[in-house]
């Protein structure tokens, strides 16, 4: 229930960010990413701000996107992706791979 609430709140907060074509935000809470699926335009560069609301550090990692980035507890980090071909690009929080996972869908 709490997770659902957080998800709703996060998506409401994210709406303005999504309106801008190139900037996205991923939020980590309880070792989970919100949103867990991010749609981006293929063939363009994008900036994703990873906000870590947990007290523990996390490493945003994706072999598909060739990114490894440490985001400290209660901190944030910027990752740059693209240009991507259409397809699915999974990512994980390496320190909590069981729960912290998501996918970027380029289309």
């Amino acid at each position: 229930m709490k997770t659902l609430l957080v998800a709703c709140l996060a998506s409401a907060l994210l709406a303005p960010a999504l309106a801008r074509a190139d900037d996205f935000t991923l939020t980590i809470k309880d070792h989970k990413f919100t949103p867990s699926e991010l749609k981006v335009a293929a063939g363009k560069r994008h900036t994703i701000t990873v906000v870590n609301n947990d007290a523990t550090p996390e490493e945003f990692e994706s072999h598909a996107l060739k990114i490894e980035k440490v985001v400290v507890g209660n901190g944030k980090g910027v990752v740059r992706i693209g240009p991507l071909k259409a397809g699915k690009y999974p990512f994980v929080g390496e320190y909590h791979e069981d729960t912290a996972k998501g996918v970027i869908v380029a289309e």
Partner: protein
Amino acid sequence: MLGALIIVFREVLEAGLIVGIVLAATQGVAGRGRGRWIAIGIGGGLAGAAIVAAFAGAISEAFQGSGQELFNACVLAIAVVMLMWHNAWMARHGREIAAEMRSIGVAVSEGARPLTALAVVVGLAVLREGSEVVLFLYGIVASGTSMGSVFLGGVLGIACGAAFSALTYYGLLAIPQRYIFAVTSWLIALLAAGMAAQAVQFLNNGGLLTAFDNTMWDTSWLLSEGSILGRLMHTLIGYTERPTGMQLIVYVCTLVAMYLLMRIARAPERPRAATV
């Protein structure tokens, strides 16, 4: 516990592989002091890892949020230069050392210079991977949940990584002495090329170098970089499942530069026929 073991082992694996290769590459160089230099490298790397982990937030925020990428790229670039220096030095002196080892069966103690270079490489490898291990273990301590068993997993992960390092070292030592310099020189050249390709990708991620960043191919179906074998190949030869054009260019250029450097270093050759 197993989860922590695997995470830590994966990080230590990369540094362990590099330490193993470096130890084998310096086999026969300066018998005394070699262990000390490697120990200094590991010790310095661990201290550096703790410092980097402590300032991870500050590093990340530096240079408009590209600090971490820039830092990683610099660390890798320094390692590449040190590996080139080592190979050039070995190209010049390796044959004498090998000849002497064959004739008197002991290591010569000529020159500590490649040892300092390789101590730096070891230190930087431990620093890079170690800081991630420190952050991971810190996270466990901070969250306080089932700390004991997870911490034990972490320690076992480090032990497994160290064991793997020893395995690499003794595996390489099994190579006949005649070939060991050639083999380790090639390994170090590939190691350096992979690191250079990784460094430009960090610059790309930091938004500092975006030329030729289109993906050339995708071999993730064949070998995933997330698998243990994929990670080993990533460290060993710079395997990347989706390399960019720039990564390929830099990879090839590093190999060519290394080859030319070794040729040049070898150039002022004394008549060899007499010494063999």
